[in-house]
């Protein structure tokens, strides 16, 4: 009969044991939320300089006006940048705790920016911390900055509160131009692990736009394994994205006799067919099918009629072909298989891939590529003819 009380005590003891053990509890106001990360080469040899952009969460009533506290970093009114250098990111983050009153909290980080010099030296070590930390998210954008990455985090912002969320939103909007790749940490990990595919990252810089520092996109940075070996401009990047079938919308200008039209890509789909040639080389046939509409028009020529539309389509096909060829030439020049041809060959002919794997770079350079583009016409918007009186 007595042992029934003891069962209750046992349960109480278990609960007490648990109660004492709220180990992982952290109040919201003890956390510093990291929103952006910039990684540059440190001054002395193989040191990394890490600067974190943390959201300064101001209480509803203590919103300080003006340029905000000059704590140990610079920052606008809603963020502070803290930087430190050291051997490994993990160690740097821990050193930062000397300077920051809050626990550095990574999961809400949105962007990781590598400085160009760091990128050329290799980004694997920088990425390792963010791939390994259990709470970090793999859908984080990774970019390469011309010059020092820390400057990117100092850019002035108009719409967003912080440069890092500004940068993330810019990359989000790139599907309108589809000239900048939207690569996440998970994409690069996949590419690096695949041995043959060369990852491409967005390539950005800080420009002085009428007194205020703005972020500007320059195209894409091409990597070999995890080292940056060059970069592509906007047109070449779009060519690459065409091959990778990642183009959503965009525009290209088409010249006519005395008029010009902006052909708007409404929808594009591309397929790559790889075949082996007798002499051991590889032939790639790239088919692109896209629908193109008239975005806007210069001059008074009535384009949306029977004879001008085919001209528009032919022109757009020619431009796309040029862009893809430019991209292929640039990739061959850099020797980086940006299009993932190697991976497709491995998938289709696994045995053949074993032979050509070692000197894949030469095989890629001598690859024969055929580009076929087929455009279909789409509507020309609300008005059929330019705003001009009909020609009598």
């Amino acid at each position, binding site marked *: 009969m007595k042992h029934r009380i003891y069962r209750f005590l046992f349960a109480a003891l278990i609960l007490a*044991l648990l109660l004492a053990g709220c*180990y992982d509890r952290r109040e919201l106001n003890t956390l510093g939320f990291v929103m952006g990360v910039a990684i540059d080469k440190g001054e002395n040899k193989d040191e990394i300089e890490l600067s974190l952009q943390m959201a300064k969460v101001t209480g509803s009533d203590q919103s300080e006006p003006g340029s905000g506290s000059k704590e140990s970093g610079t920052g606008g009114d809603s963020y502070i940048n803290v930087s430190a250098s050291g051997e490994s990111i993990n160690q740097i983050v821990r050193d930062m705790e000397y300077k920051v009153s809050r626990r550095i909290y990574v999961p809400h980080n949105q962007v990781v920016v590598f400085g160009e010099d760091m990128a050329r030296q290799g980004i694997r070590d920088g990425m390792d911390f963010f791939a390994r930390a259990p709470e970090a998210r793999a*859908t984080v954008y990774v970019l390469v900055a011309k010059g020092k990455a820390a400057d990117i985090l100092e850019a002035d912002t108009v719409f967003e509160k912080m440069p890092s969320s500004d940068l993330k939103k810019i990359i989000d909007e790139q599907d309108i131009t589809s000239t900048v790749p939207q690569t996440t940490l998970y994409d690069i990990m996949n590419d690096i692990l695949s041995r043959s595919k060369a990852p491409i990252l967005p390539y950005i810089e800080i420009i002085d736009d009428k007194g205020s520092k703005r972020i500007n996109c320059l195209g894409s940075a091409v990597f070999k394994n995890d080292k940056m070996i060059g970069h592509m401009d906007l047109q070449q990047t779009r060519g690459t994205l065409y091959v990778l079938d990642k183009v959503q919308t965009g525009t290209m200008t088409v010249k006519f006799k005395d008029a010009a039209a902006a052909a708007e890509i409404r929808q594009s789909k591309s397929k790559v067919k790889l075949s082996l040639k007798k002499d051991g080389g590889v032939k790639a046939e790239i088919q692109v099918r896209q629908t193109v509409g008239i975005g806007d028009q210069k001059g008074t020529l009535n384009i949306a009629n029977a004879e001008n539309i085919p001209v528009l389509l032919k022109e757009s096909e020619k431009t796309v072909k040029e862009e893809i060829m430019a991209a292929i030439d640039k990739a061959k020049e850099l020797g980086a298989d940006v299009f993932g041809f190697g991976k497709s060959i491995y998938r289709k002919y696994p045995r053949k891939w074993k032979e050509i794997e070692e000197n894949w770079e030469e095989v890629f350079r001598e690859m024969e590529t055929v580009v076929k583009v087929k455009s279909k016409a789409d509507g020309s918007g609300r008005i059929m003819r330019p705003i001009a009186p009909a020609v009598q």
Partner: protein
Amino acid sequence: MKISVKQAGYTAAAFIFTSALLTKGVYMYLRQDSWVAVILSFLVSLIFVYIYATLNKWFPSKSLIEINEAVFGKIIGKIISAGYLFYFFTLIILNARDISGFVGYILPTTPYVVIMVAFIYTCSWAVRKGAWNIASYGPLIVFVSLFVIMLNGLFLINDIELNRLAPAFTFPPIKYIAGTHLLTALPLCEIFVFFMFVPYLQKADGLGKVLFRGLTVGAAALLFIVIRDIVILGDTLLILSQPTYSVIRLIDVGDILTRVEILYAGILISLMFIKISVLYYATITAAARLVKTSSHDYLIRITGALAVIFGLSVFSAEYEHMDWTNRAAPIYSSFFIMLLPLLTLGTAAIRGLNRKNK
């Protein structure tokens, strides 16, 4: 209250579902061909389920311990039953270590002791309420989990690249054998534990139906998860410590459906809760029948304590855990769930104990 065949079947499916959510080993052997191993292991497991069914038909409403005694006589029967008891107990420890590994991954600084004690205490509470209760909410949790997994698969539609399955059948045959053996031994044939539930089934010789239902539902879930992991993760499949968990973290549909891994954690903990309660119950009834005592309530608490103690010390490092699960575990468990039942079946047939002369 006796358990119906359907209820026990779906509770058996929870067994396989749990290991399906934590699969890692099979990717090591066959990266993009793991789904082949799943199908092959399903066929192999069908054979063993047939063997268990015939054993059950020959000795209806008899649990494993009584069958051993009937077939091998008193002494050898007791030894073999002790072996089974030891096997079930190690299964509890391994699974408890799995779940506290996962929860420890989410709550990094909480020591394993707290997690394991909390988990085993809840399981002991479930066991004290008896087998019927476990089988009553088993199907509920399995259906909810199936729904969640299907939903997660749906959200990741646009990340899927079917050509990641492409270079199929390019691995040496030994890898296929290893993969199939791993999948047959670890998730699929663990439902052998339900032999201990035979006395509680409504149909005395219904074990065959129970295991078949559990096997099909579980294997279907395993196939879905494996294909989804391959198709979405591609090459990162190899280096991720928790593939299925990482896949679910990739869901980012329109910034509303972003943090969905809480669902994954929920169903994993519930499924593991059923699995460990069933194993716990099987161990205790096995021990009680071995020692010929009627009520087995007094064993519940001490077995829980032993499970916690051994669970904490079973692996000193995560790589050891991985190494055991991928290389040694299939051999160890196939000794108990493949070799011994065959032996029992053989001697029973030789000694002519099958149904004919009953």
